[in-house]
């Protein structure tokens, strides 16, 4: 224990899985800083990964003019910053996503407003 203390210092973590209705997933769209930060979404673990771009992300990213131009077959995915190949037919859980994982996607050729990375 590195917290200096006069008594035992051991308190529950606030953000464990049990405290949420669903596991949290963090997601970021590379090169699109118009969205100031990546997002945090509680998503059912049995949701098929393929539902993300069709059912979830339009509500999140749809305002951006690049979103409608995305060719999802060309999109590059990353998990914790490392290249990752999700299977859209499998669920989030079966793709290995657990509580508080972070994924990113890159859309080659689409680099934001006038290519400014926003």
């Amino acid at each position, binding site marked *: *224990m*590195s*917290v*200096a*203390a*006069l008594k035992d*210092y*051991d*308190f*529950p*973590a*606030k*953000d*464990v899985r049990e*405290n*949420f*209705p669903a596991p*949290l997933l*963090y997601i*970021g769209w*590379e*090169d699109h*800083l*118009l*969205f*100031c*930060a*990546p*997002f*945090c*979404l*509680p998503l059912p673990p049995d949701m098929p990964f393929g539902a993300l771009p069709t059912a979830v992300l339009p*509500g*999140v990213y749809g*305002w951006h003019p690049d979103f409608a131009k995305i060719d999802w077959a060309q999109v590059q995915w990353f998990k*914790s*910053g490392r290249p990752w190949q999700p299977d859209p037919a499998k669920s989030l859980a079966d793709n290995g996503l657990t*509580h*508080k*994982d*972070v994924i*990113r996607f890159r859309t080659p050729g689409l680099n*934001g*407003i*006038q290519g*400014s*990375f*926003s």
Partner: protein
Amino acid sequence: MDTRVLKKKLGLKERYAAMTRGLGWQTTYQPMDKVFPYDTYEGIKIHDWDKWEDPFRLTMDAYWKYQGEKERKLYAVIDAFAQNNGQLGVTDARYVNALKLFIQGVTPLEYYAHRGFAHTGRAFRGEGARVACQMQSIDELRHYQTETHAISHYNKYFNGMHHSNHWFDRVWYLSVPKSFFEDAVSAGPFEFLTSVSFSFEYVLTNLLFVPFMSGAAHNGDMSTVTFGFSAQSDESRHMTLGIECIKFMLEQDPGNVPIVQRWIDKWFWRGYRLLTLVAMMQDYMLPKRVMSWKEAWEMYAESNGGALFKDLARYGIREPLGWKDACEGKDHISHQAWNTFYNYNAAAPFHTWVPSDEEMAWLSEKYPESFDKYHRPRLEHFREQQQAGNRFYNKTLPMLCTTCQIPMLFTEPGDPTKICYRESDWRGNKYHFCSDHCKGIFDFEPEKFVQSWLPVHQIYQGHCFKSDVDPTKEGFDPLLAVLDYYEMNVGRDNFDFEGSEDQKNFAAWRGETKQGDRT
């Protein structure tokens, strides 16, 4: 006691000694360690408290007398400002949003500082340190009160200030200053002094005060300027306490040096992250601009800070770990932060806007490497969409840094096109950070930071609704329910400045008509 008699017999130094050190004693009926249970557990070793050099020799009678005089002068100005409708003299109603940020995010910290110094003022066995902390505790309460009084006049005329204490404990971006101070106040007394007195009141203080106060002066806000001046002499006492406590710890025992260094690293970084809000205010919220955040950083951090750490090198202290990254950030953080509040303006009780062409020209000039390349295109797109009736309001909750609690808006040092992601695994759970330094702070004290009350996570846990809310009901809108929990006046406190009640009122009071308004 007849003070006049004392003055004939004792000089200032003797008087001060008699009324401070002279009132302390070594306890015999209870051990000293039991009377002062908090001043050794952090590992800081003090061998001789008599070596503490009191920065100012103010006895309590002098303190009350001169503070009282400052109050009389300050309140005369506040009264005159109210009587003369000074709020009509500000450059532009957009300026008032800087005051909203101040009363929401800075003023509550004065109250926390008051509580923190009251606790610390009891904790040290050295009388000189206790006296200085006790006076600072009263100073901070004074600042809380005077800021509230100075800004309360604006509250009669503008939105976004009426419920700041309630918002401080709930609203997403206010968890940033709140968690900063709660981290300090829940640490031990020596860490508290390193955090507040040294890192904040000495190293970083000018970066908080100068932008707000000179911003006020340049934008016609004499009430705030006068508060600023009135607080400054208190601040000079605080600064001298900060530099004295750091030197005292470093001189008392070589074993203190690595502990103090770690605290300097932590609190420089946490203070720097907190100043993100000030950076944004300075570059975007002052209709009449003073200097850029980048210029302020170069003047008050790089020059002053550089000299300070050269001076401390003789103790074995080096510049803080995050120094270089903080300097790299000077080109970016104000733009990135403004973008964040523009994104989430539906959920923030102050207004944002796209800067005018003139203002963007100023930003281009002040940020020649970055503004036109990375920020102008986005702002112009926002403006174009707003004019087409499609003003962007981000409705999805952001990812937050576990340590500083700011949305993950910061970019990789050296590459402002890439969000900086860092993570740690601890006891089977993942934690995320905006930077190496926030990650490092977590990694050293994970037991503390796993308790972070992160607003986004708390919303998802269902803790940010009023007690009578039924999330299963038809038509339930969680975002509106959260705004209701915040007790924000939706449509008055939030959304863009364009079309706001503040804008309409100010134009009417000044007898101006806004383009497009029906008369």
